[in-house]
């Protein structure tokens, strides 16, 4: 049972355990979202870490119900900041990545460990597991290829299960824009998956 430590205008302020539970529940999806955007595991981990720190430091006392929107907004801002920094340092990044052979991570399948770690799906045959892994890999690849705003809107709406108004608040745009982005993302994603032989 959550330990409520204060009441703020009818809304319960987030206690330490509630903040902990919230972060634990959202951190992996946030990591994946950042990874879809920046396509760099370490950068994605840094983004999630920064977002967690910012949420706890600046909004740790806010009502628990406000945490999801605040956190998603912080994550999106952190991703945008990362792209801005990359743009400024693009020359150095290109130089360093060519010297350090940074393509190793890109070539490696981030879901290779899925089968080994998958203990809850013992009834599936190896073939089925392989197929699931491949489908997931393709979905994640195609999500990464979507335009940034379309991907944001789609993920907020259908993975984070925010409604249109909440998604608009996180993205800082109108509800109409969210609907448009979602519709375009859905059609683009469905077409791309169909072209690769996947029908959902």
């Amino acid at each position, binding site marked *: 049972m959550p330990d409520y*430590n*204060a009441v*703020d*205008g009818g809304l319960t*302020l987030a206690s*330490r355990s509630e*903040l*902990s539970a919230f*972060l*634990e529940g959202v*951190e*992996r*999806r946030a*990591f*994946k979202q950042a990874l879809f955007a920046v396509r760099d*595991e370490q950068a994605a*981990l840094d983004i*999630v*870490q920064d977002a*967690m*720190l910012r*949420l*706890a*430091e*600046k*909004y*740790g*006392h806010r009502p628990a119900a406000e945490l999801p929107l605040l956190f998603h907004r912080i994550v999106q801002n952190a991703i945008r900041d990362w792209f801005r920094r990359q743009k400024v340092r693009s020359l150095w990044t290109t130089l360093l990545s060519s010297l350090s052979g940074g393509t190793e991570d890109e070539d490696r399948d*981030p*879901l290779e*460990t*899925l089968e080994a*770690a*998958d203990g809850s799906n013992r009834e599936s045959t190896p073939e089925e597991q392989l197929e*699931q892994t491949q*489908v*997931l890999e393709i*979905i*994640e690849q195609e*999500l990464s290829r979507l335009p940034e705003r379309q991907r944001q809107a*789609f993920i907020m*709406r*259908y*993975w984070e*299960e925010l409604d249109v108004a909440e998604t608009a608040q996180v993205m800082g745009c109108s509800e109409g824009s969210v609907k448009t982005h*979602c*519709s375009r993302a*859905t*059609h683009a*994603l*469905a077409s791309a998956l169909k072209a690769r032989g996947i029908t*959902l």
Partner: protein
Amino acid sequence: MNEMHFGNRIRQALNQGLRLEKSHVERLRAARERALARQRPEPAPALAWADNVLGGLGGWSGVSLRLVAPFAALAISVAALYTWQQNRVISDFEEIDAMLLTDDLPIDAYLDRGFQNWLKKRVSEQ
């Protein structure tokens, strides 16, 4: 195509991909614990009330627009009015000084209160 249905299928697929490498899980756990260690303590009731009021105005960014801007405009107006008044007084004195310096007056005229009143009256008439 039903967008909602498609979105739900994608969500189910993505949720299957949330099993991360152990190192990533550990890194996220460490980040979470660092964040919890820095959780901002609950503010005092007065501060909490002020924060709520500010939140209702759109947060600290809203404050800058809705509160600070009118006060800044008022301060600028008062400063401009004060400067204009000061310039006007200085200008009056300058005119009197100029008249005194250009006219060939006896030294006693400077001590004559009636003369000074006449000068002021003349300036005000102009």
